[in-house]
């Protein structure tokens, strides 16, 4: 299957690019680990560990992925791939799979440090559920990040635009522990956005060692936002600078 061969090679290409991107190491690994050490105060709760784990994964899935796309668009790299026979779906699949692998790798490292240093970690039964949430959530925000590139005119403006649509949401959703809660209106709104369901699902797995799969409601929210991201990307994605 030549398309499978091309896809595999493209995942490898994007993986190499990501692991050599300083932004990915900082936002996906160093930032959550640093905050864990600073905020943990020796006894980090499951909510904080879950929040920082999700923060790292989503930084890679959204910020690093989308900023990289904008840079590639501006430098003509996207145009060059568009001129090649690699189908657009294979380009995006390769990039998103590589992004998910790096994001989940960073998240697993954060969880491992929390488990070893603070004894906060999922039970063996909960590991699968955490991984499913992280993979689905990362792919979801990568789709949204791809869509967001349409609103970013230049590489220079990528960081402010992407940060503005990312940090308020992840911080309000409880990335540093202490979510807005589910009783008030803001909490209800956050529950329908993609970040809080992720943090909730990971928190539950850390606290209770819940079953192999996260709640269907959380996965439904993530899948719905992934669909929104894909549809907007299909309509608005640009391969060349405007």
């Amino acid at each position, binding site marked *: 299957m030549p398309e499978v*061969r091309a896809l595999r*090679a493209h995942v490898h*290409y994007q993986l190499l*690019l990501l692991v050599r991107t300083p932004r990915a190491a900082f936002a996906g690994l160093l930032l959550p680990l640093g905050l864990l050490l600073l905020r943990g105060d020796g006894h980090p709760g499951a909510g904080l560990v879950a929040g920082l784990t999700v923060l790292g994964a989503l930084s890679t899935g959204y910020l690093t992925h989308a900023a990289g796309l904008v840079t590639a668009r501006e430098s003509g*790299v996207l145009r*060059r791939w568009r*001129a090649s026979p690699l189908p657009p779906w294979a380009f995006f699949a390769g990039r998103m799979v590589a992004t998910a692998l790096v994001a989940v790798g960073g998240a697993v490292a954060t969880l491992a440090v929390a488990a070893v240093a603070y004894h906060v970690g999922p039970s063996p039964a909960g590991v699968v559920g955490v991984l499913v949430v992280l993979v689905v959530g990362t792919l979801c925000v990568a789709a949204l990040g791809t869509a967001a590139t349409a609103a970013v005119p230049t590489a220079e403006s990528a960081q402010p635009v992407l940060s503005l649509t990312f940090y308020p949401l992840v911080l309000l959703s409880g990335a540093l522990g202490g979510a807005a809660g589910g009783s008030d209106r803001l909490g209800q709104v956050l529950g329908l956005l993609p970040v809080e369901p992720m943090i909730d699902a990971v928190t539950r797995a850390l606290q209770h060692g819940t079953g192999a799969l996260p709640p269907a409601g959380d996965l439904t929210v993530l899948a719905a936002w992934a669909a929104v991201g894909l549809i907007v990307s299909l309509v608005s994605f640009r391969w*060349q600078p405007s």
Partner: protein
Amino acid sequence: MTALVADRLAKRYGSTVALDEVSFRIGAGQLVAVLGPNGSGKTTLVDLLAGFSAPSGGTVRVLGADPHRGGPAWRARIGLVPQETSLDLRLTVAEVLRAFAAAYPRPLPVGEVLALIDLAAEAGTRIGALSGGQRRRVDLGLGLIGRPEVLFLDEPTTGLDPRARRRVWACVRDLTAADTAVVLTTHYLDEAQQLADRVLVLAGGRLAADASPDELRAHAAAPTIRLPMPPVAAAELPAALKVHLDGGELVLRSADVGADLAGLLDWARRTGVDLSGLQVGPPSLEEAYLVLTGHVDPVQRERRREPSHA
């Protein structure tokens, strides 16, 4: 076999006409140079031929397909070297070549491409550590790696040193010998003279000429008398000849070579000007180009003042 056909091809951006009813055909194995000043429509034409944008009018077919609707199977038969280097700087030369090779159904071996672009020793070097000329050669390698039947070269040798340019020319000649049709946009007229079977001259979005380099020279401009002219001698020139001074050289496009030459020789004998640099010959492609485009392209003006750069 016809590789490309453009029929009254037009492209407008709002009220700006970038390309105005341009028609031509290019056969397999032909190399056609597209010349024109900045803004004449060269890159717009390449964008249309490579399928990056849809025409506003007319039709274009490349390898029998509408480029704008060309799918992966069509793109596998096309090669592109864009106007500006477009590479991921954190990857090595071999990593980039391998990734692109995997996208094509029958790519050239990566080792062969590295040899063609003379970067075998830099295969493991990150692209960010290469010189500008070396990066340009990676661009060329990516254009060649799929064994294209049609190759678009958008100013491929800009910024290369003379040796590297000749290496690129040799690559391109090998491709045309293997029946690849090549569309080359360039500001270097010596490049067009060296490589092109035909030259399309664009001016203001219109096709000003479509002919071989020799035909262009013969029809577009008159024979030329050239004489290096030191400032002291230039001051002595009669007013009728002074208007033909171009930098430190008298460049006289002559409708009557015999009469003009006799006048010049007579003046030189009287003033004692050295005639050892005197040249009489057909017009250069550059002169024909300037006549056709109706003005002096700034890039060419610079290049004409730097003959060693040619």
